[in-house]
């Protein structure tokens, strides 16, 4: 089972089975829905800001997806807490990839990035922060 331990590290399976920040947020300050057209997975991201209206107080997510996308989004909710919208808008994907910590093929990379991309879209809609690379002409949902 060693090769599968590498691919699905314990921490990935833990986040997948016990996702942090899973659920729907009523009256979110920012929210967006994202889809992975390769597999039809959907995720909704909700953000609550702190009193300064800029620092992320809480992120929640709902939807369905594979272990990689669910675990990555779960890790993301912890990673961005306490950061500002501006900081998160330019958050380098490598920071999240380092946290995931397993090699990903190009197709699986899209799974891993679904949550982060959707979060950046939510922040763009609420705060006008820059969109992620390559999404400048995206039809916003």
């Amino acid at each position, binding site marked *: *089972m060693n*090769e*599968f331990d590498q*691919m*699905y590290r314990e921490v990935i*399976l833990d986040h997948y089975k016990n996702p942090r920040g899973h659920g729907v947020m009523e009256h979110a300050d920012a929210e967006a829905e994202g889809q992975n057209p*390769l*597999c*039809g*997975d*959907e995720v909704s991201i909700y953000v609550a800001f702190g009193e300064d209206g800029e620092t992320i107080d809480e992120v929640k997510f709902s939807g*369905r*997806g*594979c*272990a*990689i*996308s669910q675990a990555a989004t779960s890790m993301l909710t912890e990673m961005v807490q306490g950061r500002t919208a501006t900081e998160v808008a330019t958050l380098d994907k490598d920071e999240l990839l380092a946290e995931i910590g397993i090699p990903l093929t190009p*197709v*699986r990379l899209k*799974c891993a990035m679904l949550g982060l991309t959707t979060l950046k879209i939510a922040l763009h809609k609420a705060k006008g922060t820059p969109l992620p690379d390559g999404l400048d002409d995206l039809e916003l949902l």
Partner: protein
Amino acid sequence: MAVTARQKLDARALRADFPIFEQLIHGKPLAYLDSANSSQKPRQVLDTMTTFYETSYANVHRAVHVLGERATAGLEGAREKVRALLNAPDVREIIFVRNATEALNLVAYSWGGNNLGPGDAVVVTELEHHSNFVPWQYIAKRNGAEFRMLPIDENGDVDPAGLDEIARECNVKVVATNLVSNSLGTIADIAPLVRWAHEHGAIYVCDAAQAAPHMRVDVQALDCDFLAISGHKMCGPSGIGALWGRGDLLRSMEPFLLGGHMISSVRFEKTTWGELPHKFEAGTSPIAEAVGLGAAVDYLEAAGLDAIEAYEHELAAYALGRLSEVPGITLYGPPAERRAGVVSFNLDDVHPHDVAQILDRQGVAIRAGHHCCQPLMHKLGVAATNRASFYLYTLPEEIDQLVDGLYTVRKVFA
């Protein structure tokens, strides 16, 4: 060539024709269970294309030199092979296109775009591949026509009576459905749909992309008006497919793509269109690809389409039996005798991407996703399924390798 009616398929012998299997994947033998997505290619097709490029390549239809003659003979010879495969009445009704998607777009734009209007309707089914769904949805909307969908039952069958209901509200002009479902494997009984369409003055458009590789498809027996196939799913190269259409319809239609080769004469004031099939083949064709498709047709005819179909029923029955032993599995679609070599399933609540990834490490290639059938996935209440699909080179031990792999998936996600 003469083919006996009781020809039996020898998958083990055929498999030796496919160089792709002469390798290990992640150190394991390759179990390629993704042929409905795209099939592998036999040496006969690869060699034919290489020889064509090495000895006979030039542009077609306009060169006076000998290579131009050879290339034209190659392309037109392939057209005749496709005609014979589909039992089309006239070789000029075979239009070479990139794939079934392009064939269906051609019909949607050139026929639908000029014949649909307010009050008219295009009817598809819930089981369509996006290629026979999205073009009609788009053209119907653009022309102010209705776009309707017949629901399916759990076997993937439609109730033709649904057409009567739609006809009470609008004038059905197109009924467009698949012959074999790429996601459930259902072999559709299209005869009632074709009959209904013709009794009501509508055309019937058949997506045969998943049928033509696996069974005998006869456009005259089906009595359809248009039929689309993709070469890459039937042992041919990618980039070549064919549309068959009834001659009178094709002649009445405007061209789809415009430019070189498809003209009769070009003046500043007016351009007139070429004869069939050239009217619909603007620009330089995928020549070597067409020649490769011709070789693929020869290969399938030698194996025997009826033998391929019978063998795939056996594989489907074996796969359904073996897979149903796996705890936590959900199988979708009809019984084995009603399906081509396609089995869609889900395992517990493990996402298909994760299933496919773990299977890949064990040398098993399947498709995981929505299979370009999001309306169907919505109906099944899932985002995606796993799909194992078979072909004439598939061996039962590949299905065993799949089943073993699924037990490993369960261990990882226990």
